[in-house]
């Protein structure tokens, strides 16, 4: 092609394209603006494993048109806070209490009492203001494969892993402290050592625990699943949210055992709330009423091995999930205090203790 024609053609394409995008930008600006109709934008970090598609399809059946925006927990919380003056999303669900405490603090979510409020334990949500409401519960557990380590030989306390030289380098530690699960592990480690006089509200003994935990562990490998490492003998122990166990046992042929410490394990509760300032508040509330209902949560639990907070929905949950969760005591963690400090704790750990 003639160089000049090509140059003009490229220029024209770029200009036309920009124009097209600009015009569809103005056309779509409504979704972030004052349009009360239209598709409901649902923000979540709980869209993996086909959950996003499942929720979209089920909602459609119930007559609610939704579009899922699925992002990782920390990214999602940051996005909602950044957008709070001109919200794009209408509802958010799946984030844990800590993230929701942050959203509430930033006035990025707004109070609403769902139709199913009476069916859940409000203590797991936001008992003071009723801004966010609990959906499902997960335990953050230390697991091992009973095929290699008989349950009788496994440690009974998580701290044995770094106090007993036999386990040196045999347990996986996740160093990606920007993510939710490693943050909860950190919160669980520090919870027994809270001390107003200590550094960042934690006694020296507590920081020692963190140091030892990371010093004797084997850092997680980017792109390699914990169970793959356990199967090939790299490590024997590692941390996992409880809902991940069933699928892994099926995939790797492992038989998972769980360390159940006397003080309990950290629990997280995934919540739901209306995003403040959305023009589709009514539709958002309608979605919450539908999604949190015993029926939907029951079906969700049966499909994705979750443990619903809604007491009526628990009947539908898988028996092995119910058995596991009910066998693990809840560790006493003050989430609102943790929320205030976790940023500083992560920073200190990142700067001083990570391998």
């Amino acid at each position: 092609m003639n160089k000049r024609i090509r140059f003009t053609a490229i220029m024209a394409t770029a200009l036309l394209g920009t124009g097209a995008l600009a015009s569809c930008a103005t056309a779509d600006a409504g979704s972030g603006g004052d349009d009360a109709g239209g598709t409901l934008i649902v923000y979540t970090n709980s869209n993996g494993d086909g959950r996003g598609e499942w929720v979209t399809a089920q909602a459609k059946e119930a007559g609610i048109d939704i579009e899922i925006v699925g992002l990782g927990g920390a990214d999602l919380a940051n996005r909602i806070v950044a957008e709070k003056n001109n919200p794009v999303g209408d509802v958010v669900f799946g984030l844990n209490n800590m993230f929701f405490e942050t959203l509430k603090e930033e006035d990025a979510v707004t109070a609403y009492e769902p139709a199913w409020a009476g069916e859940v334990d409000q203590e797991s949500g936001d008992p003071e203001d009723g801004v966010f409401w609990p959906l499902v519960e997960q335990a953050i557990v230390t697991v091992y494969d009973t095929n290699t380590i008989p349950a009788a030989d496994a440690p009974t306390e998580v701290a044995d892993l770094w106090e007993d030289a036999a386990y040196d380098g045999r347990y996986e530690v996740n160093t990606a402290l920007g993510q939710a699960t490693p943050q909860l592990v950190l919160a669980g480690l520090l919870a027994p050592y809270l001390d107003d006089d200590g550094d960042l509200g934690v006694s020296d003994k507590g920081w020692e625990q963190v140091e030892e935990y990371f010093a004797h562990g084997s850092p997680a490998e980017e792109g390699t699943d914990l169970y793959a490492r356990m199967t090939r003998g790299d490590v024997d122990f590692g941390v996992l949210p409880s809902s991940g166990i069933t699928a892994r046992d099926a995939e790797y042929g492992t038989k998972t055992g769980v360390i159940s410490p006397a003080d309990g394990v950290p629990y997280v509760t995934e919540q739901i709330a209306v995003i403040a300032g959305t023009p589709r508040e009514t539709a958002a509330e309608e979605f919450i009423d539908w999604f949190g209902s015993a029926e939907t949560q029951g079906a969700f639990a049966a499909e994705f091995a979750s443990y619903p907070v809604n007491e009526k929905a628990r009947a539908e949950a898988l028996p092995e999930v119910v058995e596991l969760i009910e066998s693990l005591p809840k560790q006493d963690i003050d989430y609102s205090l943790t929320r205030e400090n976790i940023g500083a704790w992560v920073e200190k750990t990142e700067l001083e203790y990570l391998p």
Partner: protein
Amino acid sequence: MRNSSWRGMLRSPLVVIVLVVLVWFVATFLVLPNATLLISTFFPDGRFSFRALEKLVSSERALNSLWHSFALAATLAVTVNVVGIFIVLVTDYFKIRGSRVLWLGYATTLIYGGIVLAAGYNFIYGKYGFITNAVRNVFPDIDPNWFSGYFAVVVVMTLATTTNHMLFLGSSLAKIDYQTIEAARNMGASTLTILWRIVLPALRPMIFAVTVLTFLTGLGALTAPLVLGGTDFQTIAPMILTFSKSSGSRDLAALLAIILGLATIVLLAMMNRVEKSGVYFSVAKVATPLQKQRIRNPLANVLVHVAAYVLFVIYALPVLLIVLFSFLESTAISTGTITWDAFTLANYATVFGTPAVLKPFVVSVVYSALASLIVVLGMLFVARVFQKHRNPVTSLLEYLLHIPWILPTILIALALVMTFDRPNPLIGGQVLTGTTMLLLVAYVIIKIPFTLRLLKAAFASVPESLEDAARILGAGPLFTLRTVLVPLVLPTAAAITALNFNSLLDDYDAAVFLYHPLYEPLGLAIRASTEGENNLDAMSITFVYTVLLMIIMGFTMWLVYGRGRASSTRRRTPRLGAGAAAAGAVTGSAAAAEVAPVRVPVPPA
């Protein structure tokens, strides 16, 4: 004429328009958002806070990681140049058997990168890699962890970042005046002397430009150290990533990023200075295409051939493996036991079974194509003005345009969301947050420094005499730019467009905060299908997406290079010889009118 007077600069309406648009763009999209974010970060209560600096200095781990990043960048600046210049010479300069096949092998780094590349090498040489296993079967004493730490990171990143050399050095090489080489040979110069005294000096502007890029890549290294670095060699980038996501630690992230950015800027300033002090122009003014040189020493010839093919195998293996792995069950990959039964189409079925699987591809292709075209077109003008008019204003603007290199993408994206969430007079009272425009703006922004650097280097190798000739013949500035200058830098511009397009296709960092809910880009779709606690096929699905991306990117590269290469082979001229020849033809009339005698590039003494 290189011009440093103000009046001369403002006399041309074209320059004035370019400058006005540029100042508006820089102020609106680069300075305002980032300055707002940084001020709120470093002046939390209206007073400057030294907190971040104190934290940083007292942390041994942070200082170590910072040091590792610098060590890596410095090492790469050397190793990548060595390997990169070598592969450019064997594919484009020396007569090597099968050089086209070699080129394809070396070009594999154009179409993949990041976690997949690091994982690919890990599957071959890592603790459970098959080469490690094979060697250990013979020599059981060898440490299975031999391929980790500084050494492994340097090797992998060296091989992975020769892309810029292949594209930009290759195209500069094609434009060398072949007659000077012939003249030197007639005077009895050896192969090595010609290379050292004529070829490499002519390539210097481009070598400087790609060295800055390499240094920057080394400083920002994220996935290779994570996968291969082990506990002994972690870099600063993962820490910046973690900190930039937590509002309380954002000052630390910004501080660390600024330290890295300043280092790059210092290097840039040094290179600018060196570039200014020499006269480099190397475009062949007559259509004598570069002919490949035979290596006359037989021993050297054999050695170069062997080295070229060994490199070829090292480059090609991970790609083959990734294609193979995309057809394997994920347990087979992660446990390293590959049997015939493990082969499956299930991974592809999963990806194509996802509803609306095509839409993210379309969205990302549109965004990436628009952004890469806009940025190259814009920077063509800007680089031209900067190169022609050197004064404090253009220098300042040039450094401001490098802001996206200083700050991490995440911070830039957050700053954009927070600045344009209300009607802004600078953009005609529009709100951009929540629209499809904002992501396009971000994509254009983050590609500016890369595009500007390389286009400037490309313009630097254009002799002024061509332009003078055009002016004498009565051509206006826009006409000159379009018909004389642009064709000369077109190969570089096309290569930049293709690279920008490829790198934006699977972007995650910018899109995560900016994408419009109804237009999900590919990076997010990939993340969504590979994340999730129960998603055990994550790695296999990543491989499938990588293969699909390789196809798109391979097609892009074919559009830019493949056809030109095919036609040039017909004419037995090297790659992009066609472009140079065409440029020669376009400028032929100008050259005929040229008063000055044909000048020969002067190697600096």
